[in-house]
């Protein structure tokens, strides 16, 4: 037998059992709309790529990281003792931040292209849940080095649920593993970060991707107006896939540049008796909600605890409305609802950018 016939018979054997030919034929016929706004189609893929980088660098960190009382010491070892440990850690932190950014761009582009409308409601809902999980990933991962900044950030962050009436303190104590942030906190955040969250996130991500495959890319309203025969498409294989992969390589290069030129810092080991360092502030993706709470607390009749409760309520209401948008703006025939949703989106961006800017402006 020649190599060619062996290859062919192995292919036939596998194909008979897995149906590769069907799959390949299916992939050949898949198309992606091509138009002026096609650029925004890449951001979901970029988010996915950065998540894969997170998994990879996360497993590498897991090789030397020790949660609990030794947490800081092990991160110090990774950063200063292990070869290229600083780079792996820096890549993990940078890709987390870049992923957050890519997810937000993806979410807003989906929002303004009205890609949440029927039949894509589940895509939108699962996407919002993924964003929620990504935030918890960020919050829990931030504590793991147990340096000064992560200690105080977690202290402040877990103080927010305390404002919830009746059950607030119990919730906060459950999250912290006690009345204060200690090695018990880092131990349970570790379990959350590397076991619980991935176990929830990955199946949900698979569902999200399945829906993208099932319904295809949504057309923005400007394309919907065109006659079907005037709309252009490109084949997924290889045209779109090639561009998708090019975006992945660009993302990887940006990540490599950021991670190596601006290595992620490691602060001093936390000290429960030391005062909070000056200029301490939340990560940029938590700046906006944090600042909203602070601004509402400054309103005269909302001072103190009532301000915090009002802030949490307002922010929660905003997120609930945002999540339910497919059920309000559900019809492409209804221009009024479409416009309201559009202005709501602009308002949301304005509020996020403005409060983030104020937050950075007023760092003491």
């Amino acid at each position, binding site marked *: 037998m020649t190599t060619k016939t062996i290859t062919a018979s192995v292919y036939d054997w596998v194909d008979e059992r897995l149906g590769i030919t069907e799959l390949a034929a299916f992939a050949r016929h898949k198309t992606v709309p091509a138009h002026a706004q096609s650029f925004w189609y890449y951001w979901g893929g970029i988010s996915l790529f950065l998540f894969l980088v997170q998994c990879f660098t996360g497993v*590498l960190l897991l*090789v030397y990281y020790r949660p609990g009382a030794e947490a800081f010491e092990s991160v110090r070892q990774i950063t200063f*003792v*292990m*070869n*290229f*440990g600083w*780079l*792996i850690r820096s890549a993990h932190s940078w890709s987390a931040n870049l992923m957050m950014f890519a997810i937000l761009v993806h979410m807003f582009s989906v929002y303004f292209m009205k890609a949440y409308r029927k039949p894509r409601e589940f895509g939108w809902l699962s996407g919002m849940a993924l964003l929620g999980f990504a935030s918890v990933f960020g919050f829990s991962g931030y504590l793991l080095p147990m340096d000064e900044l992560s200690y105080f950030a977690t202290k402040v962050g877990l103080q927010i649920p305390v404002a919830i009436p009746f059950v607030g303190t119990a919730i906060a104590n459950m999250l912290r593993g006690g009345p204060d942030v200690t090695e018990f906190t880092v131990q349970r955040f570790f379990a959350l970060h590397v076991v619980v969250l991935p176990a929830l996130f990955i199946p949900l991500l698979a569902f999200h991707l399945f829906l993208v495959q099932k319904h295809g890319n949504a057309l923005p309203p400007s394309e919907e107006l065109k006659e079907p025969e005037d709309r252009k498409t490109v084949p997924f294989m290889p045209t779109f896939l090639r561009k998708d992969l090019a975006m992945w390589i660009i993302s990887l290069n940006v990540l490599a540049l950021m991670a190596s030129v601006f290595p992620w810092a490691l602060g001093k080991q936390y000290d429960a008796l030391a005062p909070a360092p000056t200029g301490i502030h939340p990560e940029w993706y938590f700046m906006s909600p944090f600042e909203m709470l602070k601004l509402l607390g400054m309103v005269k009749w909302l001072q103190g605890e009532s301000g915090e409760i009002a802030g949490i309520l307002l922010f929660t209401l905003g997120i609930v409305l945002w999540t339910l948008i497919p059920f309000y703006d559900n019809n492409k025939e209804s221009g009024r609802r479409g416009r309201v949703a559009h202005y709501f989106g602009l308002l949301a961006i304005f509020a996020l950018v403005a409060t983030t800017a104020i937050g950075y402006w007023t760092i003491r």
Partner: protein
Amino acid sequence: MSEVTNPASIVEEYLEPGELWTRRAFMVAASAAGIGYAAALGYPVYRYLASPSEMALSATAVTEVTLKDAEKLPAGSALMFKFGTAPAMLIHHQDGRWIALSAVCSHLGCTVQYEPQADRIHCACHGGVYDPYTGANVSGPPPKPLKLFKTSVNDTGVLVSRG
């Protein structure tokens, strides 16, 4: 064999007007770039994972160790210590002899133990037996003897060094 020897003329031969590269030249350059890229990513990851073996390598370079107060070890007993990265044992025999040897069984790497009542070194994993004076493999599966070290006793401790 092609008669063309000047590479520039090959390029001219296959290029369509307006093209800069032949398909083949592009594929070669792209593969080289890809391999370079993969190596640039793989090298830090490899060195990162290899860190403990590199550290162990510097520890195995240890040629001698002083066991403080080991000279007080009663006759007929043994003391375990770490020589470089691996376990080793110091035996003070009934006849007064001091013997230091590697405690890693030459069969499958279990740590062996000295049995004074039987006057032998025994490996519990697969029943290997060694001579407690020379380290020679006496019975059982071990293929090689235990490595014997040099000892010198003074009044502050026992100095163990590689032979």
